[in-house]
């Protein structure tokens, strides 16, 4: 049956309620199996040897002594992971990041790995591997890396997107540009202009569960991988590519996941675990320590951004422009481009231009982090918007409302918007009591807006109706934020059965068709669409079975309230058939009943949020406390409101950490100084107030229930909202994130001396 994804207004029975999540009991009793909880008979312990240098040519690696150690079953280096990239740069870079080939590009870059019978032997073996390094000059700062004097990471890189192509290699991998109109003319028409430069430091997603997997390669070339990931189908593809395997021969099972936030969308040590197992002929478990997680996985870009915005006295923005420089680690990617696309997406602008530069530095490969690249751009832009409002003597919300994008606006990155939620979030913020609560001395309030694209993508779902009328739902998008509960609600809604009758599981890669990973806020958006489609297909089957049971034409059977009902005057005496009754008879009416669905979920629908924050700053120590925090965001339709609120609060909490304290600190030697939660300060419970949330529901026209993704947008406004609040509290514009106490105190001192 053709699936119609357009939004239809309706009333709900299950969707919008807040039942207990199916994985909840396992998680609170410690039974849930995370990445490191899987074990195999005969399993070995894997460990990775990492470069202690920020930048070094690898001369030779002598593994003989390690291999001779009793209990060591395999040692691998880049030689065991041959380069099969065949000109595919992204493939090559991924392989090089998993195991350095000729050069170690950052402190923590993997150079060799061992598999041994126990942890002690593995640790000893690491010490016996002799690597000769030729230490090279390094660069970790994004601005310094762009200087002509900077050490160049790859002499093969000549900035892309510049015409004519540069003749010398540099660390600037690519330039991108977006916008329309004439910024110079727009600025000339402005009455007030604000221009500022900003910096943000590198942060880590800080997922509590470190990367962990068990790899088992058999002698016949088939393999299994149990792994903590946001996308097991993607991991299967990447690992198969890197190791030269048929996709069908690698079966990947995703564990429960203790946070990912984008960091578990990239493979890190999983291909190494497979290579170790392939060589040792035994299963290998590889679990990163926290130190390894920090040094060698996942951070977001460090950035340096210039913004200029001009406006007329009446509050109309006449022009806006930004230049964004984002660190990528050692490999070219599109992080600045995403920043350049999102910078001004909240506004309706006549003249706008953004330019992004992808900058290579001797830091770990940048990974996606929740609305990747958008929070830093929003920090810079929303800080200038705030300052401009102050200069114009306008209320910050009124100023934003005046310039907010709306249906039909041509966005700064190109597309024309459909119905969007920026204005409603601003209206809600303006009406919110938080905006009108009094503030005492040393306190400040800030607000800011944020945007994220959202994504749909490839999705495949199976719905099986069991013989007792209960339903098993097999999905392929990893449940990162409660999606099994949400998808069960959706199946219950469609079939007209209780939530408790549906059990959702995440199927492995051998038992379901391909699914994109849980990123781009797509989990519930795309899998709920597929679940609706699978449910409707199952209903079709049940209608035909009911018709068979009644021996009437299927056209005369409708589905209503979880029952097949015969329509037409002649069937008045036929009692409706429940799912259970139809299922119990299925053995005699054609066998098992199932609904299947495969699709590309289009029309994810852009998402907007407005945040409000109150802070108190101790003017003698620069210490900031978040006093009150409110998140207002459009969810399209909140399927399970608890988990929507959880996403709003989680994004705000991570943003608070990023804004105030989290930062990668490198020493002069280019080594990471704080690879642990003692000195990499994510917020603890007592650092946060109860984060208040307000869910707006502006239906997404491209989803049957109007659902939009909600997972990422919530981290976009916090840096800006908090920076605006702190700036208002101390009377100095804060332009460097994190606003750690030493930075705030230094800014206050500079003003006093100023």
């Amino acid at each position, binding site marked *: 049956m053709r699936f119609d994804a357009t939004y239809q207004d309706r009333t709900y029975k299950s969707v919008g309620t807040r039942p207990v999540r199916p994985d909840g009991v396992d998680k609170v009793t410690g039974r849930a199996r995370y990445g490191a909880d899987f074990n195999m008979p005969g399993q070995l312990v894997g460990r990775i040897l990492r470069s202690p240098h920020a930048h070094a040519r690898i001369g030779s690696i002598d593994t003989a002594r390690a291999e001779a150690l009793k209990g060591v079953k395999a040692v691998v280096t880049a030689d065991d992971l041959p380069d099969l990239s065949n000109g595919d740069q992204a493939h090559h870079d991924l392989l090089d990041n998993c195991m350095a080939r000729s050069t170690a590009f950052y402190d923590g870059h993997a150079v060799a790995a061992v598999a041994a019978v126990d942890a002690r032997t593995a*640790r000893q073996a*690491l010490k016996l591997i002799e690597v000769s390094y030729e230490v090279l000059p390094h660069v970790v700062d994004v601005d310094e890396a762009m200087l002509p004097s900077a050490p160049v990471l790859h002499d093969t890189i000549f900035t892309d997107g510049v015409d004519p192509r540069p003749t010398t290699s540099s660390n600037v991998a690519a330039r991108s540009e977006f916008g329309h109109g004439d910024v110079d003319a727009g600025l000339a028409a402005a009455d007030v202009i604000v221009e500022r430069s900003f910096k943000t430091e590198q942060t880590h997603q800080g997922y509590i569960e470190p990367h962990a997997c068990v790899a088992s390669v058999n002698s016949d070339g088939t393999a299994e991988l149990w792994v903590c990931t946001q996308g097991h189908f993607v991991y299967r593809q990447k690992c198969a590519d890197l190791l030269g395997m048929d996709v069908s021969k690698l079966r990947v099972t995703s564990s429960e996941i203790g946070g990912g936030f984008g960091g578990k969308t990239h493979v890190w040590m999983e291909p190494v675990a497979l290579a170790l197992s392939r060589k040792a002929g035994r299963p290998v478990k590889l679990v990163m320590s926290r130190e390894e997680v920090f040094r060698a996985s996942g951070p977001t870009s460090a950035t340096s951004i210039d913004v200029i915005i001009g406006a007329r006295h009446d509050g109309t923005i006449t022009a806006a422009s930004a230049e964004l420089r984002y660190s990528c680690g050692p490999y070219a990617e599109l992080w600045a481009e995403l920043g350049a696309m999102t910078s001004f997406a909240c506004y309706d602008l006549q003249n706008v231009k953004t330019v992004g530069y992808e900058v290579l530095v001797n830091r770990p490969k940048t990974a996606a982090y929740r609305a990747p690249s958008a929070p830093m751009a929003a920090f810079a832009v929303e800080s200038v918007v705030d300052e401009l409002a102050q200069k114009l003597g306008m209320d910050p919300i009124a100023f934003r409302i005046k310039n907010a994008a709306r249906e039909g606006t041509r966005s700064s990155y190109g597309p024309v918007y459909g119905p969007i939620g920026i204005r409603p979030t601003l209206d809600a913020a303006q009406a919110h009591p938080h905006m009108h609560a009094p503030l005492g001395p040393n306190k400040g309030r800030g607000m800011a807006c944020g945007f994220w694209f959202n994504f749909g993508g490839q999705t495949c779902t199976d719905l099986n109706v069991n013989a007792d009328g209960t339903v098993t739902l097999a999905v392929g998008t990893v449940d990162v934020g409660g999606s099994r509960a949400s998808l069960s609600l959706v199946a219950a809604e469609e079939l007209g059965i209780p939530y408790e009758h549906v059990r959702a599981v995440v199927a492995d890669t051998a038992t379901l068709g391909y699914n994109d990973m849980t990123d781009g806020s797509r989990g519930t958006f795309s899998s709920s669409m597929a679940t609706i489609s699978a449910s409707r297909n199952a209903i079709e089957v049940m209608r035909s079975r009911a018709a068979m049971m009644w021996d009437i034409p299927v056209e005369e059977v409708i589905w209503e309230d979880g029952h097949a009902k015969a329509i037409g005057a002649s069937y008045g005496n036929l009692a409706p058939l429940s799912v259970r009754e139809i299922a119990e008879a299925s053995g005699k009416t054609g066998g098992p009943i199932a609904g299947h669905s495969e699709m590309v979920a289009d029309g994810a629908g852009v998402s907007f949020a407005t945040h409000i924050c109150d802070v108190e700053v101790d003017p*003698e*120590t*620069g*210490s900031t*406390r978040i006093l009150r925090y409110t998140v207002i965001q459009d969810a399209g339709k909140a399927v399970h409101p608890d988990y929507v609120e959880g996403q709003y609060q989680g994004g705000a909490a991570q943003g608070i950490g990023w804004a*105030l*304290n989290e930062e990668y*600190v490198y020493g002069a030697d280019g080594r990471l*100084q*704080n690879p642990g939660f*003692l*000195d990499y*300060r994510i*917020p*603890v419970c*007592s*650092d946060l107030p109860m984060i208040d949330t307000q869910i707006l529901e502006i239906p997404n026209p491209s989803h049957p229930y109007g659902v939009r993704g909600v997972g990422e947008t919530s981290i976009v406004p916090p840096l800006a909202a908090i920076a605006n609040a702190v700036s208002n509290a101390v009377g100095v514009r804060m332009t460097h994130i994190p606003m*750690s*106490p*030493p930075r705030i*105190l*230094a800014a206050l*001192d500079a003003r006093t001396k100023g």
Partner: protein
Amino acid sequence: MYYERPETLQDASRLLAETKGTAYILAGGTDLLVRAKSDHFEADLMVDIKSIAELRTVHHTAEGFAIGAAVSCADLGRHAALKAAWPGVVEAANLIGSAQIQSRCTIAGNLCNASPAADSVPAMVAAGARAIIAGPAGMRTVPVEAVPVAPGKTSLGQGEIVATIEIDNRPPRSGDAYLRFIPRTEMDIAVVGAGVSLTLDETGTIQSARVALGAVAPTVMLVAEAADAILGTRLEYAALERLAEACSAACRPINDKRGTVEFRKKVAGVLARRAARIAYDRSRGA
């Protein structure tokens, strides 16, 4: 590696004195066991002192308090007399980590770990605490500030154990306080710590004072100039300013991942001023 759990101080000292390899004393283990997980950690012997009965109690006598080296910080928080006499020392011990950490960790371990940022140490120094050290040659007593000599290094010889921390009883009109600066609200390491102990005369004038700073030099600092700045005053505004200046001037901090030199100097003065205010109020029974 061997793990031993002797029941007397003599056995513990002998085990440590006789070993040829690297040996560690294990009290609460909240520093040691964390370090033991690192790939760089090597040890041949760990001597757990928690089964030595005499190290597990707090004795309160006519002279003062004798705190056994294996008494947990949580137990200090439950000791009413100690808390009444030395609220600053107890509040410092009860800032360490979290409830879980405090139920294991000790102030002797905090001292012997020799971190410049140890929280209970500035409070102990301000309180004039002494360490009773048991060793192969018998017992000796030193001021606590003589134990740490550099980050991670102590003046203890092989086989020596801090057995007891002694603190005097209080004269009337006395009070102490400890404050630390951390970027978060808890579970953090001091960027600056300040301990102040005061005794007043009947008129509220400061008769004796001790001011100690943590995390602003390789070891804890007893700042005599800061104490002098408030002696004979009633902690008026000008005296507080002089105290803060003396503290800022005395600091010898470094720039590191936890703070800058300028930041630490400034905040050392601010915290000392605030701690002095609290100690003064406590001295007056306010």
